[in-house]
């Protein structure tokens, strides 16, 4: 590049008339020192790439490659202009705003426009700003008090959980011993009765029963498969009906929708759009019920659908071995319950080996005397001992599980990626917030699930389960920005579309509330809301952050 040739000084009156802007005009306080001429009378572009005559600075003609020679005119693209905004907050605006004929609020002193274009509104705007900021601070203050109560809660919760872990640990110890004891008993009784039991299980009745049971299980499995398939089809068609894209303009789709409506007894969707107007649903459902009522009466003793649903489970959970033994007892003369088993329950552990030895003798005597039918009761004993063991084991597992959960909860409370470094979010775990938008009520249960519930009947869709805080790689875990966004993922899949997702944007507020719901693109929802959990204490603020964050 050849430097600018200055064959004549810029002294022509014609040329000077227009440009008489202060050389530091539009320069911010941080850079003002750089706007002084060199001894040569030149000035160096801030990127050092070029020297230009000092006169070229702010002459409304771009000379420096970095645009630094025009801080006050907007002649160079991609530069900034500093509005002093006295009475308010001084700030930079992009050069594209300079002399564009608009009076931006950001530049309330009007210095970016030609003189006389914009009034200086900094006093008013500054006042309004301060008023607004005070209000926000008030909210923040109130909110932060609530927030600290959340933190207190988290600490209490931690203590409670720790105490509970303590208790559970002790209980588990006791329970483990008991399980060991019961296992011992069960093993002993079982070894005694195994052969007898096997014999009994050869009974044709028992075999048939087992066959029935297996058949029933298989039938139920097939039935469930069908139910699932039917539900899936129903879901697909319901989603098609409410969500099909009218732009496809496909009469085949319309036919499918109409057919489904007829089959499922749903009302006509009156509109091609996605809005569902289902005022008549309740009525239709009633009609459907009536129709059901008219169906043929089942034969006597046959189960209705409701009983099938619940009764079948109970039936299939029957312990057939126990039943076999009970059956034996029932068929035989009514006899007293075995006391032999019962005794073991009351004997101290230390006596059991002796007791077992005695018991064998005792039983053989009793059998000889015809008081008992030998193996019969020992078999029942075995089954009961086993049952007791199973119960105890289940109980133990539950306790261990409880403990584990509690331990995890304790860990999560103060986890940066969980309930926050201060545990301020713990209080909100599972808290459900709702927003009625007319056609739908949207619900988000924090850290759990978001849902769309139609107000006029219809299917509730899951919009996703809690997945993470702000996942942006640019955002640091634990920062306020991190906690201002929650992501709920993997909701019900849209027809011909993605799974529903929610992004929940939160700001500081005195209440936990949902403010707005928008489906910005298909099945991608944006919720906004407030929560005190985001209201940091005013005093704790870092000095530099505030001014920038609160730009108008």
């Amino acid at each position: 590049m050849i430097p600018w040739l200055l064959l004549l000084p810029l002294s022509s009156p014609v040329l000077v008339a227009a440009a008489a802007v202060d050389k530091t005009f539009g320069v911010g306080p941080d850079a003002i020192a750089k706007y002084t001429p060199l001894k040569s009378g030149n000035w160096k572009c801030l990127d050092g790439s070029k020297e230009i005559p000092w006169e070229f600075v702010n002459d409304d003609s771009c000379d420096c490659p970095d645009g630094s020679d025009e801080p006050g005119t907007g002649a160079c693209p991609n530069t900034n202009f500093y509005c002093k905004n006295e009475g308010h907050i001084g700030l930079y605006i992009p050069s594209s705003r300079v002399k564009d004929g608009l009076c931006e609020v950001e530049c309330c002193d009007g210095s970016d426009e030609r003189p006389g274009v914009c009034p200086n509104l900094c006093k008013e705007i500054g006042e309004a700003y301060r008023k607004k900021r005070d209000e926000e601070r008030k909210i923040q203050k109130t909110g932060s008090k609530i927030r600290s109560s959340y933190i207190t809660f988290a600490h209490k919760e931690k203590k409670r959980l720790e105490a509970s872990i303590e208790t559970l640990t002790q209980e588990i110890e006791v329970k483990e011993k008991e399980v060991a004891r019961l296992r011992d008993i069960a093993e002993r009784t079982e070894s005694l009765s195994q052969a007898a039991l096997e014999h009994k299980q050869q009974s044709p009745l028992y075999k048939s029963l087992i066959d029935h049971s297996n058949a029933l299980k298989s039938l139920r499995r097939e039935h469930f498969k069908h139910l699932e398939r039917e539900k899936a089809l129903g879901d697909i068609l319901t989603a098609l009906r409410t969500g099909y894209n009218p732009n496809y303009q496909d009469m085949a789709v319309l036919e499918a929708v109409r057919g489904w409506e007829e089959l499922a007894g749903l009302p006509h969707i009156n509109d091609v759009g996605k809005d569902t107007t289902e005022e008549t649903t309740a009525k239709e459902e009633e009609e459907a019920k009536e129709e059901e009522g008219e169906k043929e009466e089942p034969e006597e003793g046959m189960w209705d659908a409701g009983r099938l649903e619940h009764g079948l489970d109970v039936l299939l959970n029957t312990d057939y071995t126990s039943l076999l033994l009970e059956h034996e007892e029932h068929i035989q003369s009514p006899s007293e319950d075995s006391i032999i088993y019962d005794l073991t329950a009351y004997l101290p552990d230390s006596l059991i080996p002796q007791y077992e030895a005695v018991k064998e003798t005792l039983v053989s005597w009793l059998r000889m005397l015809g008081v008992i039918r030998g193996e019969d009761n020992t078999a029942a004993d075995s089954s009961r001992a086993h049952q007791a063991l199973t119960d105890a084991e289940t109980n133990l597992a539950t306790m261990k599980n409880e403990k584990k959960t509690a331990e995890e909860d304790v860990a999560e409370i103060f986890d940066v990626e969980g309930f926050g470094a201060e545990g301020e979010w713990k209080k909100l775990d599972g808290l459900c917030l709702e927003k009625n938008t007319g056609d739908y009520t949207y619900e988000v249960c924090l850290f759990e699930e978001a849902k769309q519930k139609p107000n006029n009947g219809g299917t509730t869709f899951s919009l996703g389960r809690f997945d993470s805080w702000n996942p942006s790689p640019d955002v640091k875990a634990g920062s306020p920005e991190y906690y201002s966004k929650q992501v709920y993922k993997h909701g019900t899949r849209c027809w011909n579309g993605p799974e529903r997702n929610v992004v929940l944007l939160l700001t500081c507020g005195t209440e936990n509330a949902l403010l707005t719901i928008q489906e910005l693109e298909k099945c991608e929802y944006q919720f906004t809301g407030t929560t005190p959990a985001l209201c940091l204490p005013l005093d704790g603020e870092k000095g530099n952050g505030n001014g920038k964050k609160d730009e108008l």
Partner: protein
Amino acid sequence: MRSWTFLGVLSLLLVESSAFKAHDFKTCSQSGFCRRGRALSARAKEARSSWKSPYSVDASSVAISSDQASFTAGVKSSLYPDITFGLEVRVHDDGVVRVRMDEIGGLKKHYDEAASWALIAEPNISRDIQWKTGKKEVRAVYGDKKDIEVLVEFAPLRVSLLRSGREQIVLNGQGLLHMEHFRNKAAAESKTEEPAAVEGEVANGAEEVQTVIKSENPRAWFEGDSEDAYWEETFSSWTDSKPKGPESLSIDINFPNHGTVYGIPQHATRLALPSTTGDSPTFSDPYRLWNSDVFEYLASSPVSLYGSIPVLHAHSTDTTVGIFDAVASETWIDIGHVSDKSTETHWISESGILDLFLMPGPTPEAIFKQYARLTGTPVLPAAWSLGYHQCRWNYVSSDDVRSVQKRFDEEDMPVDVFWLDIEYSEDHKYFMWNDKTFPDPVEMVNDVAAVGRKMVVIVDPHLKRTSEYPAYQEASKLEVLVKPPSGQGEYEGWCWSGSSSWTDFFNPAAWDWWKSLFKTYPLESGWSWTKSTDAVHIWNDMNEPSVFNGPEISMPRDNIHYGGWEHRDVHNINGMLFSNHTYQAVAERSDPRQRPFVLTRSFYAGSQRFGAMWTGDNLGTWEHMAVGIKMVLSNSIAGMSFAGSDVGGFFGNPEPEMLVRWYQVGAFAPFFRAHAHIDTKRREPYLLDEPYKGIVRDILRLRYTQLPVWYTAFRETTVTGLPILRPQYVMFPKDKNGFDIDDQYYIGSSGLLIKPVTTKDATEATVYIAEDQVSCFTVYYDYFTHHAYRGASKGKEITVPAALHQIPLFVRGGSILPTRERPRRSSTLMKHDPFTLRVALSKTGTAHGELYLDDGETYSHEKGQFIWRQFTAEKTAKKSKALRISSRDLATEKPSEAVDGVALTTFNPANEFAKSIEDIRVEKIVVVGLNGKPSSVRVEGGAELVWEYTPGHAASEKKEGVASLLSIKDPKVLVAKDWDIVVQY
């Protein structure tokens, strides 16, 4: 069982949901009259030389009007001696020949109003014509050089247009003219046997002829032996009652000396139309004109799309001619190239009279002017509408709109218009805001307008049939809705709004009412759109009309319009009338009138008078990106200059690279809008990651810097009718190499040449530089690097860098481009900005450019409120070493050519508008290709200016490489004033 059936349907749908639904639309063989027309052509081919048209002029009936302006004659068909047809031939004062033929005294009337909707006025008849009547023909010779001749031969009837003795256009040269006369159904049935036509059984030519041979029917050799779909026709589940019976029109139009044809948009195909007949045709079906809402249309197909302009240009190195067929019914056009020097076309229309305009050319430019004199020039758009438009189906709420605007501003990306698709409205009742999502529409629009921006809101033609919708209620009360075939009551069809009816804009009673709806203040007479402002402009979609449950996604052909015409008669005009009346309504809602912006999807010849069109629902694929350019070019040469395709593609999620390339395409289309389907991910440019975001920002800004070029180009087209985008053959009509080129083009007369890249992973592009017969212009400068490329005497291809951030954009040597280089948020905020002039010198060291400016919004330009400047660069004397760059007023010189609308007799350079911009200066002048380093640069009579010179190649050299660059800093000359700058070197 039933649910399984549905599952089957569903799975079928999932497979097919992303494809063009061919079965929704007719092929020629599924359309009775097209089948008949093609069969006729097949019989003629079979018969060869023995074929003779049955139509002949009754020599005794020839009557020449007293002023010699036209002649009329009776025409008879030997097939039906009782039927008379009337022929009328006129020559307009610009040499255009109009040929009309209609049935006289028929049982019913053929639709004869198509031209009245397309033409701006009844054309003036030439006073210089002398018809000479002979025994076998009538002829007239005219033109400045008396080299044009119209010849009407009597038996058989044959009309030809000749220039210098060479046939340019020949009508009925192949004897395919056939106007089916109205006949009586009962009588017809008694005469013939069982109609043999079966749906789907293609009328195969050979078979037909064999039938003919066996037949006793004396007309079978011509008409075929069966009444194929004369009285009723079924397609899919729809039956067309065809109450008027057969009334179709067939005519062959041949261009014996023209090997290339362009036009008849809109089809997704190449600009130079591929053949549909002859040996191995590109397409097996004829080109179809039947405005249709085609879902996911194919990127290469003769299938009809949303708009129809029955204009065809035939081009050769010698001459260019054109025809405009003023027909509004469904029309199929076969194109065949018998040799590479001649073209045969066959036009088959369902109804209407023959009303043909033969445009004699002889250049593309002349054709544009002749066509513009018939149907009007493109309207001068509001200046802001040349900015960038951001659209999506849908911005979901007023806050959504605000946040989109905020993001554009944060990223400092310019945008002028935010758009709202159908979901702004409550239940798709257009005008009626959904007050849950748009509770504050006026405030929202005001927030957008505060930054100098506008909004465009969709208003579709279907009216939801509900008592809660004032627009429907009022239309119903006024009885201006389209009627069902019975002619009674209201036609009901299905569209976005569910059960809907359509306003019949052929009914004059609808016009004032439609205007009243757009008023933004309350009216006593009825409902008006008070929740709107002057910053709201309109998008007319679905105006083919699209009817979801109608035949071919449109209205039944036997629906009844005003005057008792059937929908089939007027279908292709329907969409134009809708946008026409919306245009009037928006213009007149404010006082004084403001220039409206109305975007239409459907269009017809003449639609250019009412605003912009776009290529409809394209796909986010490279193929659609590429064909979109060809479609825009094709529309441009047929008058619809204000055209573009959806940036990004309507359907699909384009990857960042594709989106960037698409922005490069869009930035060089007259209408520049990004749009996206509701199912797509958001793709506003600020959502892109770097480097894509920065590249798109630069593209948007580039478009804005060039807005003065675009606006100046629009001025020209409003006066001349020359397209904004000019394909290679328009610029270089004698360069045969350029005839098929449709992927690069010039912008107006500016000298900008663009070759958008439409392929993935491109790093280079090939650009064709034409042979230049006019002068030694053949140096082209890369717009960004100033690299000089040289042409060759026979034209040549150059390879240029085209990485993702690079746009193959060139300035033709000899051009001066006015630009505004300061980035702004919107175009209206650039009004005070200074200009930069780019002077790209030709080989002889000259350059020329223009700048047109007005207030951009009102009609004050029609009263002389504008500036029209000419910039020139030339040597001060033939052998001097000094270049004079000057600015002159062009409007005073040519006041009558300055603006469309009113031809001014005088121009006042000191008009109010000129005064309002009198302090706007030229802040920089860049001269590319100077011969050497200047010794002095000064405003004539003034002081030395500040300048910088970078050595490089001179324009006059033959070497390629970076050209020399002179950059003159702030000469402080004013854009609206005369000045001279002299560069001594």
